[in-house]
């Protein structure tokens, strides 16, 4: 550990009670800035944060010109990236998978219109744990609905852990499952057709309903139909969990007919239709490490899928389904690079590609003036497995890096006599 760094860290330690969790002006000096924009990587660059936002990205920002009281972080060449986004995660919804009462990711009653936003628990132990490893925003989705193809609506949360955490963008996308269940996939497609048909009828009947007229919403609630209509009217994305290449092709046709935006999730065979996905500008969310042909729908799973997709011009979003270790998307990205993916593209797959696909790119996902100051300073290459996040900043607040896990570590290092 360099001297400056240790001084800095001890400084953070001393000041922890005063500086953590308060929005403050921060100047990060001499960072290797991976912008996740067209500007690429900027060496020896300073980043100024004011009022929770990035206000200047430039070489040699003069300390004398910044307001007194600005915290200065000497990066010494360390890598600074935008905070990582977890796309399609249960972060904040699950504490322990096998303990049903600690789970809020499922419903037995609701369908397409099931909004998960009120279930998010900012005090979950998973939040500081993943934050300390670089996740600053979570796009939180329910895992399953009442049993039809729809699981519900996702919302976006920052991971600062404030007890009054509000979604920064609510009900931004719908998630559904196509194929791979006991019902025929043909039935899944009919179900989808019927749901959209019903939503269209609902739209036409709105006036009648407002005047107190009767509308038979069938097996869906009016909430579900509103949510489905939002997919066409507001072009909110529909996340389609599916793996088989031919299912994806049919889904693309469906999306064109109904004028909806789709994003594929899982998509183990997406590489087989990479050109088509690129042509239709459909993003895919994948876990590059999951190359297991775990079902007959994912026979084509392969370790270099992310590379093939990126080369073909498909927008790749990297995410890990395990909420507890959402941050391992970094390792996924590293493995994608090891198997041919461009390194910068891999970094974008953890940040700006996710923000763009979900319509969040105005505020998060890259290091650009005007965006939220959600930043991570790393002690090495952020895609490396032996790298740690040194400093995590959300909305201009330097977050505590402490986790329950680290507390246990420290306790038992003493017990075992290794401290």
């Amino acid at each position, binding site marked *: 550990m360099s001297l400056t760094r240790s001084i800095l860290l001890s400084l953070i330690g001393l000041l922890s009670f005063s500086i953590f969790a308060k929005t403050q002006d921060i100047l990060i000096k001499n960072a290797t800035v991976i912008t996740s924009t067209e500007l690429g990587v900027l060496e020896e660059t300073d980043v100024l944060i004011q009022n929770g936002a990035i206000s200047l990205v430039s070489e040699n920002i003069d300390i004398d010109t910044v307001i007194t009281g600005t915290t200065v972080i000497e990066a010494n060449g360390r890598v600074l990236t935008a905070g990582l986004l977890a796309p399609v995660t249960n972060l904040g919804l699950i504490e322990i*998978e096998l303990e049903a009462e600690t789970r809020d990711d499922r419903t037995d009653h609701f369908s397409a219109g099931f909004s998960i936003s009120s279930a998010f628990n900012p005090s979950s132990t998973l939040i500081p744990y993943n934050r300390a490893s670089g996740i600053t925003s979570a796009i939180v989705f329910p895992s399953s609905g009442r049993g039809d193809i729809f699981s519900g609506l996702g919302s976006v949360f920052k991971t600062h852990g404030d007890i009054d955490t509000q979604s920064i963008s609510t009900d931004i996308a719908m998630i559904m499952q196509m194929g791979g269940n006991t019902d025929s996939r043909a039935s899944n497609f009919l179900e989808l057709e019927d749901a959209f048909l019903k939503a269209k009828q609902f739209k036409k009947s709105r006036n009648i309903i407002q005047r107190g007229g009767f509308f038979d919403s069938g097996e869906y609630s009016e909430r579900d139909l509103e949510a489905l209509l939002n997919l066409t009217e507001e072009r909110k994305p529909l996340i389609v969990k599916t793996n088989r290449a031919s299912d994806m092709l049919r889904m693309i046709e469906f999306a064109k007919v109904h004028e909806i935006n789709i994003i594929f999730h899982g998509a183990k065979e997406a590489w087989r239709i990479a050109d088509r996905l690129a042509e239709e500008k459909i993003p895919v969310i994948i876990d590059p490490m999951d*190359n*297991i042909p775990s079902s007959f729908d994912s026979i084509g799973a392969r370790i270099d899928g992310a590379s093939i997709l990126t080369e073909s011009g498909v927008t790749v979003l990297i995410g890990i389904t395990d909420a*507890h*270790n959402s941050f391992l998307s970094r390792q996924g990205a590293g493995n994608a690079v090891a198997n041919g993916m461009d390194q910068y593209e891999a970094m974008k797959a953890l940040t700006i590609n996710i923000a763009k696909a979900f319509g969040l790119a105005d505020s998060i996902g890259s290091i650009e003036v005007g965006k939220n100051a959600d930043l991570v300073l790393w002690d090495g290459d952020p895609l*490396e*497995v*032996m790298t740690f996040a040194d400093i995590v900043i959300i909305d201009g607040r330097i977050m505590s890096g402490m986790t329950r896990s680290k507390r246990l570590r420290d306790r038992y*290092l003493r017990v075992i006599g290794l401290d």
Partner: protein
Amino acid sequence: MTFGSICIHLFHLEHKGEIMILNPKYSSLITALVLILFGTISAQSQINEKELINYAYESTYKPEESGKVIITNANILTGNGDSILDASILMHKNKIVAVGKDLDQSDAMVIDAEGKWVTPGIIDIHSHMGVYPAPSLRSNSDGNEATSPTTPHVWAEHSVWTQDPQYTLALKGGITSFHVLVGSANLIGGRGVTLKNIRSRTVQGMKFPNAPYTLKMACGENPKRVYGGRKSEPSTRMGNVAGYRNAWIEAQAYQRRLTEYAEKSDEAKEMSYSPSRDLGLETLVGVLEGDILVQMHCYRGEEMAVMLDVAKEFDYKITTFHHAIEAYKVADILAQNSVCAAMWADWWGFKNEAFDMVWENTAIVDQAEEKTGCAIVHSDSAVDIQRLNQQAAKALAAGQKSGLDIDKGRAIQWITLNPAIALGIDDQVGSIEPGKMADIVIWSHDPFSVYSKAEKVFIDGHLKFDIDDPASFKRTDFDIGIIDPEGDRL
């Protein structure tokens, strides 16, 4: 011999519901017959009667004799804790012959490692490949006989599907040997099997030669959830412990019956029946006699301590605690008892007993009691088995970050020598030293980097995977023509 009576039962005679022992005067004849049948009379002329019990299931893996191969300009992590820079490894006739500088290269095929890192073949002590293969189909799900809390009579090898496509994926991650366990639904789940990562039509053809048998046992949530959910015992952790103890009491009684019978005079034996064979109790007696190694799924620290007491009560040894999420809480006790802990780098929270995970778990176990701990990084996953080196790297990084003095030479042992020790095969694999099987991996980068890939994987001196030659590795049956009839899965 305790097992002398049992072995004969390969040719047992049924008599009034009991199995009658053959007259011992025929037993040598029978043994000879067995040996002829299996065609190994010369190699096995001194066959131990104890081994006969497993004879029908012996490994048939015999690698073709490999030629002289020398890997030069290698930076070697030996698996013994050392690093040897810029050295060579000579392999011949399936074994490592020499390690060092200025080795004689004559007649050898030379592979220039160009300064790359070379490690022993990676060993995963916890895998379900073959018994929970891909694709995950009900008809292929053969890993857990979850029909009774104690099933020591089942053997994982009798479930193994030899054409699981996951094997070749693991091979590309440098895995040369792996231990297949039954699942953890049961207190006593059954025998595990150690396999070499080679393609064969038969499980016997994959079996690691002369590897000891293992017994899977499980602590904690799984047995009590599975059986408690059926309103049967065990439904609590105390029910679990009562279950193990009852099983060992039964095993001790059986062991006594066997011993008493074995100690009878020949005349007395002719006058009496031998104890009936009991598949489950034979396995448990194997543990009591130290021939079968206990591999115990156990997450919590206090449960590990309780299990060590159960082992003390019945005088057997637990070799390894698997999924030992809380091993760091009892790392000193584990080291004092010479018990290994097999751990993940960072899995946690999927159930309550996995809630107290720390990244430094492996490092703390390793460093406990003046660095005498036995730490292993395992996968339990067909995804993570492909990058066990990265899991070890994460565990190493966490240990170093918390101030523990561990280097890569030591950390590589977590996925090489230590699992070999815990599987009782460390005399044959786990490190790069003369006399051991030539199981070697050449890595593209530092194996503790996410960018590192296994470039060349040797098993018993044969190049089984070469990253530059897609034709180098043998696909499983499943991989062939499965995406389209003309091609193979990668």
